[in-house]
């Protein structure tokens, strides 16, 4: 009897027991940069995102960005606990040879590059929100601040929503 109850609970919770979901997001752009989502894996405590950055302007673009934030639908913003070298876009770009502290390198016109980052947090279950907004809050292109719209990551329709789940 106990096993039957347990089996029923486990089966009922199958979708809720998935450790991570692939979220999807539409591209955003602000001259001279376009940003698209290549992959975003959202687990309870961690979000892993790979973005593709394209220079849509007429000139080569020197790009710097050292901060990324995730905003929940209730307005909570996570900007701390970035983990690993992949969390620091500036360092990632340096790793790709596009930028370093001494000699900044440019992304040629029409050229694109991909970069990844991860954010850890322990208090909220990121899988249970229908949307997550990714912002590059200090994106600078050729010395000019660029207000790129937030990339909105949306949960797949089959993912159970709500933090009570």
């Amino acid at each position, binding site marked *: 009897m106990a096993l039957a109850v347990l089996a029923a609970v486990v089966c009922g919770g199958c979708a*809720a*027991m998935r450790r991570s979901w692939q979220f999807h997001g539409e591209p955003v752009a602000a001259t001279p940069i376009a940003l698209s989502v290549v992959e975003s894996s959202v687990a309870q405590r961690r979000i892993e995102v790979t973005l593709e950055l394209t220079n849509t302007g007429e000139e080569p673009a020197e790009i710097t960005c050292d901060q990324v934030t995730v905003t929940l639908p209730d307005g909570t913003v996570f900007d701390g606990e970035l983990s690993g070298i992949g969390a620091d876009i500036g360092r990632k770009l340096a790793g790709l040879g596009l930028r370093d502290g001494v000699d900044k390198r440019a992304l040629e016109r029409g050229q694109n590059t991909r970069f990844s980052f991860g954010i850890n947090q322990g208090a909220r279950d990121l899988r249970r929100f229908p949307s997550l907004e990714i912002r590059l809050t200090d994106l600078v292109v050729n010395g000019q601040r660029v207000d790129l719209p937030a990339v909105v990551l949306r949960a797949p329709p089959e993912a159970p929503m709500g933090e009570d*789940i």
Partner: protein
Amino acid sequence: MRTAAALLACVASVSGCAVNLSEARPARVLRGGELQISEINNVVAPLGALDDTITSAEALVQAARDKSLTQAQARDLAGRAVAIALAGPGYGAHIDVTLGLGYRIDTNFRFGNGIYALSLRRGVDWDRWHAGFGLRAGYNTGTSVIPYLNDLNSYVEIADTTRWDLQAFAQLGREFREWGRLWLGVKAMRSLFTLTVDASEIGLGRDVIDDGMDYFGGHIGFAVGYRYVYFVGELSVLRASGSIAAFGAERSLEGTTVAPSWGILGHW
């Protein structure tokens, strides 16, 4: 006296067929798909029963020497032997496997030291504080690391011990990012047992005891590690209550039980 001390050491090291008092896990109920596996070591030190153990051991040694037990002493000795078997000191280890089912429910399977237990827990989460409350049902074969107190068995044999432990518990705790956990909780347990006492060696014959006892108390624990692996420590203090009737005499099981636990917890 030296023999009594040796016998007491034997009691303290091998008896204790019911080591199922600890919780030894953080208060936060696992999210769906989360998994915890832990190896927990337990020591049970029942302060009240310990005095009984000493007295019982000394009386046993005396009985072995001159075989001069009166009927009342024999009943008393048999009662003490049963009390030691049910609520005596001991140690053991168990494995806990906890799986998050989603909907703020997790389930835990506990096995080891003759115990097989299953629990369900429901959680409530705040920003950094977490609460959990649940129920556990455990079947306890009553076995210990080695057979119960061989020396004592030659006078009062305890056999066919089975116990059902029904627990209700609640925990409140805080998480410190990915390196620390702290929790405290309360627990109530009803232990229903059946055992056979063979005291033929001291002239009392056999008796079957079918009864129950209760535990109520609390615990405080911590886990220190990083992200996937933690060292866990917990201290439980519970009040035992109840009594058993054997060979026409009643023996109290009242006492305070202190049960420290420690082990390694993996979290994925």
